[in-house]
């Protein structure tokens, strides 16, 4: 699974730390998700998508090998 969090953050102009605070996780966790090394839980994915005001499929994209 890949994600557009970095792009979406740029659009909203917020930092990793801002996003982390808003969804209640640590900054390292956001960074680890952004670099595609951790697949977040459904709850966390929904929270992140809500911050960006987009459906979750626009932020998190399933890949062929998944």
């Amino acid at each position, binding site marked *: 699974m890949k994600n557009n969090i970095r792009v979406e953050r740029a659009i909203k102009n917020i930092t990793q730390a801002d996003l982390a605070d808003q969804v*209640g*996780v*640590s*900054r*390292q*966790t956001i*960074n*680890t*998700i952004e*670099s595609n*090394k*951790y697949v*977040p*839980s459904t*709850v*966390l994915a929904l929270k992140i998508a809500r911050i960006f005001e987009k459906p979750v499929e626009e932020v998190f994209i399933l890949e062929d090998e998944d």
Partner: protein
Amino acid sequence: MKSRFLFPYQFKLLGWFLAVPGFVLGYFVLYHEYKIPGFELRLRDKDALFVPSIENFTNELALILVLLGLLFIAFSREKKEDELTVRMRYNALYWAILINYLIYGVWLVVALVHDLFFFNNQVRVLSNFFTDILPIWIYNLFTPLVIFVIRYYYLRYSKNNEYKIDKLFYLPYKPFKVIGISVSIVMLTGILLSFIIKWVSGNRINEDILEDMMLFLPLALLLWTYSKEKNEDEFIATLRLESMQLAVYTNYIILLVANCFLFFTDFMVFMFINLSTITLFFVIRFNYILRKYNKATEQGELAS
């Protein structure tokens, strides 16, 4: 995943203050037979074989300090606890138990080979030079926690910006699960029967075979623990991780209690049982919950 059963963040520091003196004291107890003068109680009137009348509590103190300290270091919250730190902790624990018992397996093989060469083919793992230097049943009381702490701190702090997570390791279902289960059950039955016979009839049993079974049981249970279910999936993986955490907690609670109430030969026997208990508690808890869910699913399907 939510974090469960963790100590407050401040306990991490407290843990170091307990564990470090504990290790120093433990080293002197184990290799220099140090005893804190006067830190003892007269438990019996007379000395008996292997059971002196006066019990000095220095070794018990050292073990309590080491275990409590390590538990605090290992299982206290992060400042900012979230689902990834929980996951990291779970996966690192699953990894650490595997590594602990692989090291144990290597030790066992080396000890056996050593016996073959130095004792004219009399293979008795428990009575030789090698086991005096590295008595693994003593080390195994705390190595699972030490390996976990090292692993967790590495994953947590090796990169400034990012956490690392271990991938879960499994052996294939076939043939490892079947081998693991059958060998474990045969050995467990054998060990149980030996103990029962010993207690009930007081007869001498073949202690060598009992000893060997207790030494090899951890490896059989390891196969059982680390081989896949037929229908392994994300849910089962989570169940595994939770069960491992509970197994480790249960193991250490029992160990701390035993340390306070068992002495001499009783504690020696307990240490040998303890070699297997983490993986034993794991397979019991994991399979119990899995059965329960499978049953519930079957009934649910019939109902709908």
